[in-house]
């Protein structure tokens, strides 16, 4: 079935089954491999993308549900060479080790800052609880989100 998807501000076409998870459409059909498979169960957050600005687990989301909505992936956060404040902060703080969780973490954090420009640590922890970092860089990730909040004042449109 042919789908037109609005991914990172661009119309993209994919001819796939309606039940195919968005994750696989992004990665295998559209070549956007920044979004990761971690569990396929919606439990780890590695596959987090924004659907109309809200973080969603793309491994559990049939592509048909994403039709007509704004899909933002990690590849869509930066503007050319200009990194999104959350990306900048993750880099500055080095909020990763193997970095496999990083895309999902950054996308989730970007969504948080859109809603809550100056989150408390408790708000960060509560919002990000569904994102797993097996290397255990949680402390630095919280620091990076705080830093992103500070450097952006108000993050640019994600």
């Amino acid at each position, binding site marked *: 079935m042919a789908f037109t998807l609005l991914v990172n501000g661009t119309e993209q076409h994919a001819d*796939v*089954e309606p039940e*195919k998870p968005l994750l*696989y459409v992004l*990665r*295998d*059909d559209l*070549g*956007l*491999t*920044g*979004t*990761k*498979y*971690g*569990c*396929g*169960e919606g*439990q*780890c957050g*590695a596959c987090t993308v924004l659907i109309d600005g809200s973080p969603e687990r793309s491994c559990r989301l049939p592509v048909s549900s994403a039709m007509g909505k704004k899909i933002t*992936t*990690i*590849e869509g*956060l*930066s503007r050319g060479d200009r*990194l999104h404040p959350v*990306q*900048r902060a*993750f*880099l500055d703080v*080095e909020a*990763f*080790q*193997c*970095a*496999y*969780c*990083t*895309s999902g973490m*950054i996308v989730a954090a970007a969504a948080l800052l859109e809603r809550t420009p100056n989150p408390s640590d408790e708000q*960060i*922890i*509560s919002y*990000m*609880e*569904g*994102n*797993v*970092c*097996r*290397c*255990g*860089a*949680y*402390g*630095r*990730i*919280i620091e990076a989100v705080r830093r992103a909040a500070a450097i952006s004042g108000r993050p640019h449109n994600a």
Partner: protein
Amino acid sequence: MRDLAERSEVVADEIHDHEIHDPELRQHNSISRLPHTFNFDRRGFFKVLGGGLLVCIAARHSIAQESGATVHHDHELPKTLDSWLHISENGQVTAFTGKVEVGQNVRTSLAQQVAEELRVPLSSVRLIMGDTELTPYDMGTFGSRTTPQMGMQLRKVSASARTVLIGMAAEHWASDATGLTAEEGKVRDSKTNRSISYAELVHGQKLSKIIADDPELTPAKDWKIAGTPAPKTNGHAFVTGAHQYTSDMKRPGMLHGKVVRPTAFHAKLISCDTSQAEKIPGVSVVRDGDFIGVSAADVMTADRAAQAIRAQWEAPSQISDRELFDQLRKPASDKDDDTEQYLLGSVEQSRGQAVKTLRQTYTVAYIAHTPLEPRAAVAEWKDGKLTVWTGTQRPFAVGEELAEALRVPTENVRVIVPDTGSAYGGKHTGEAAVEAARLAKSAGQPVKLIWSREEEFTWAYFRPAGVIDVSSGAKADGTLVFWEFDNYNSGPAAMRTPYEVANQRITFHPSDAPLRQGSYRSLAAAANHFARESHMDEVAHELRIDPLEFRLKNLRNDRLRAVFEAAAEKFGWGKQKNSSGSGFGIAGGFEKGGYIATCAEVSVKSGAVKVVRVVQAFDCGAVVNPQGLKNQNAGAIMQGLGGALFEAIRFENGRIVNPHLAEYRVPRFSDLPHIDVVLVDRKDQRSMGAGETPLTGIAPAVANAIFGAAGVRLRSMPLAPSGLPAQST
């Protein structure tokens, strides 16, 4: 007993093929393989015999029981510079190492050491890692050996190259080499102030000189690039999603694979009907021995095809986790086992000197590494040659595994390891690589195989469970008199005590393990530290001596004392007293050249345990990258918290009961304590690895703190999977 410092040097100096005789390393390597025994030539075999019927032969080869270690060859390290180092015409320095990057950040720390000794900017150094065609042989990235061994090797290479380059400049200028120095990628003549760049000297040619045996290495106190914080190499690619992990790769014509798994461990294939799967257009089905797999142009079709296969398996009845510890106490059926014992003085004869004796048993459950990137491989055949990209810690061993399984000469197999989404000791083997290669062979196209989370939880291997009996005796003043320590199954790593005890009997007893088990970050050091440091705490409380004071009383090693003192000071040990609901614990030890001490504060409210604060002091010699080392310490504490508090693999009759993240709890944001890492930077000491030992202190520190807070002594890891036991709160 060998002095700790001497043991640390031994750890650093053991090399390559000798390593295989080290029982601890054997543990790293003796991971059984999945029983894929392919029979490519069976059709031919039957033809020769004139047999008319090809039956489903459940060929089970002894290989399933064999060690995963297949180091048969003498792998002498190349002695010429060009195998390790290349300087291009534009001055780009490329270093080659068989080590791999799995998040421990050695791509950065090794580059720092090259830049330091070669006297070039860090930005001009790049590393080619873990590629069996391009890099020198390497046994694998494990045992915290990258820093002491590969770091030292690349320092020697770079320092030798520096001397060679100075010699080339002298020749170029037809002058004496005295007065010539290397800096910033150039050789400078201090007398005339002229300089020439390495690039101009080398002209992109190979550095064919032999590596010096004893080149002049830069002492850590004079380091300018090593020893300073360096950001992770390629960080930009990770925050933009541009980095290509194995699972992100795409090759022309690539198909997606899926393996049909048995219903239980040790199951044999009785029958299988693949006809429905074969009817799906574009699907290639492989059935070879007990292996069944499919490949198709997209994951949905591959999944559908795998589900359409009807397979019948027969599995022997197997034990459940409830019987685990009884099973582990039974001696291994293989008499040629790896029992290891250390004896000092006489435990029996010294018993009378003790006024306080204590005997306790500690246990640890099986746990899973749960790397966020599951096993993945992309396999491609071309003209009889096989190339596999895969996330493994042992590319050369996986190359041999592939050669054996696919029946091709090792020289026709190339394994490439893209920087990988973590491993933690869990990716020593090549399961996904072998499976992808087998599928690709039949499909005639490249195949990518990514294990599902459930496959990773079931068909990977686990950190060994263990039972540890500790029996000790002490005098009234706190002097330990005897120490008996019996470890069943979890392993001998860090089994010996760093405390001074005149009479010791320390034994590792191998068992017939009910699950496939193998390496895990720090091996058995986590279990052995848990048992030893919990027991030390118990004895201290029995004797009414402060647990830190008790340890220091029995400890002579200066470096271990120093980390205990550094952690205690930062933590404010002794300033706050245990109270109902709030407790403090301390633990420490020595392993793989690293000295560690960990203090933890926990709160216990209505039975719920929360680790509030952790201070960890760590000494691994001269610190190469403080930025990375702090990150790694904090990460190890977080990862260790999982095994300490709640991680456990549950199993029943050959099946994993909790093979999903919803049922197997890993540490999350809300589990994060306030963490302080104190690095004790010993510039006078050799740099040692830090991937593993920082994980070993947290479990006993937390167990001891729980005792402080709730008065209940927990001796089984995980300590509190669903809070404290009801009767204890």
